[in-house]
């Protein structure tokens, strides 16, 4: 365990140094991330300036929901964005390089890259969460700010673990991109910007049980926005860290299962 951590940190340091070589790209990328998210929020703004609220959620509550998702997503993007690229690593033979080295393959794979664009997501989401906090006139007790940190980390883990679980299928099939893309639609197409209770039971069950992306923002937000008593499933607002740990265990098990059956493509 200790060795694994040392290897991971050494690799991350190398990845950061590589990234620092391209500063102009960094700034353009961060600005791009800001504009991309502003565009999505602008659509919500247009809708809610006309309709006042969406299934009982006002504009700033939607902003809060969206940016809680973005915070977790941003943290996962900085460290684990390349999980999605496992298929490409396998097809191009890069993964075989990892296997020849005498260190844990998962640690090497996770430590291979960092992605600066996630920093833009994190900065933007913290700014927008602060704005939402002020505009909604919230008054949290101190412990809730600590809970916010726990939630941010667990939503990063939820997203990373679901993705790892799905890409591990490419050890068996070599193709997982379409599967990952369709599954992540439930994340950025559904839970990201809409309160999931508006979609009815089926879709809410899918994003709670099968692809539990709703634990990235919807359920935790119920507590932060004082909505946990308005719905019958308010208790779930406490379960995001538990879900994150379970998913982490499952995804590592799936990785180990897959890698045992892995046969190189030979390229």
């Amino acid at each position: 365990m200790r060795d694994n951590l040392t290897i991971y940190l050494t690799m991350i340091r190398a990845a950061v140094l590589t990234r620092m070589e391209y500063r102009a790209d960094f700034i353009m990328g961060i600005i791009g991330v800001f504009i991309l998210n502003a565009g999505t929020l602008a659509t919500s703004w247009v809708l809610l300036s006309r309709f006042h609220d969406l299934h009982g959620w006002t504009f700033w509550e939607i902003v809060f929901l969206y940016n809680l998702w973005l915070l977790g997503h941003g943290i996962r993007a900085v460290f684990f964005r390349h999980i999605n690229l496992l298929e490409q690593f396998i097809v191009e033979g890069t993964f075989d390089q990892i296997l020849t080295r005498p260190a844990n393959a998962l640690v090497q794979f996770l430590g291979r890259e960092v992605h600066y664009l996630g920093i833009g997501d994190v900065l933007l989401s913290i700014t927008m969460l602060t704005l939402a906090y002020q505009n909604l006139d919230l008054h949290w007790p101190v412990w809730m700010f600590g809970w916010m940190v726990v939630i941010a980390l667990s939503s990063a883990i939820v997203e990373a673990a679901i993705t790892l679980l799905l890409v591990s299928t490419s050890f068996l099939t070599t193709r997982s991109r379409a599967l990952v893309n369709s599954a992540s639609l439930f994340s950025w197409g559904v839970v990201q910007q809409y309160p999931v209770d508006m979609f009815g039971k089926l879709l809410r069950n899918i994003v709670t049980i099968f692809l539990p992306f709703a634990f990235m923002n919807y359920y935790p937000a119920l507590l932060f926005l004082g909505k946990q008593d308005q719905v019958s499933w308010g208790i779930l607002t406490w379960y995001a860290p538990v879900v994150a740990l379970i998913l982490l265990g499952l995804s590592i098990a799936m990785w180990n299962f897959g890698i045992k059956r892995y046969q190189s493509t030979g390229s």
Partner: protein
Amino acid sequence: MSLFWIFSRQNFYQQSAYRLNFWLEIAGIMLQIYVVYKLWNVLFEQTPESFGGITLPQMLTYAVLGMLLGSILSIGEGVHTYIQSQVRMGQITSDLMKPVDFIVHMMARDFGQIFVRLLFFLLPPMVLSYLMFDMVVPTSPAQIAAFVVAVVQAWVILFFCNFMFGLISFKTLDLMGFSFTYFALVRFASGQIVPLWMYPDVLQPILNFLPFKSVFYTPLAIYNGVLNGSAMTTALLVQTAWMVGLFAVARLVWGRIHHSLIVQGG
């Protein structure tokens, strides 16, 4: 013209190769359609008076068809991403050496992709949507004809926008930062998700000034019957004007870039 069909055939084989991918993509499209369907149902139930005389089936038709058209009129992927990857890999030379005009060649490629995506990813989910949801159909042959013309013109307009956007990569080798901005702008200003008449009045002059209104809003509003009579004719003519204008600018810009192009050995 045969060039256009050659690319279609190639694409057809590529798409047929992975059957699982086909079903997963269809499932993804249906999910997106379901999301907008639910969204507008909820909003309509809350405040039907905010829709300004539009019926719920009309609104749903607009929203569902907006998602469907999104599978052929793509902002995220298209001629711009093709040019970018060719430039970065240094393979753009092989495109430039072909004995066909570059713009025509790129259009034929794009057409091939769109035609196949139309068969695979627009028509089947469209049939499914009509079976599942309460949506309107165009009432007269003239309306259907106008819709088809509007879609074709929308494709040409989006193609030239994407094409000129892609040309940036000849200067910068990369589109990363810019492509987020472009994606956000087109998505917001085209009315694919929210009909443009719902936007605040302050934004209307800007939306009218941009070509993106012609890409999604015009065909969608013709199909659900919001644009009709002389307003419809005007919208179609505006599209034609954008088409011609963008073509002229694209030719000019490409001529300049091509003239001063230096390709590094890749």
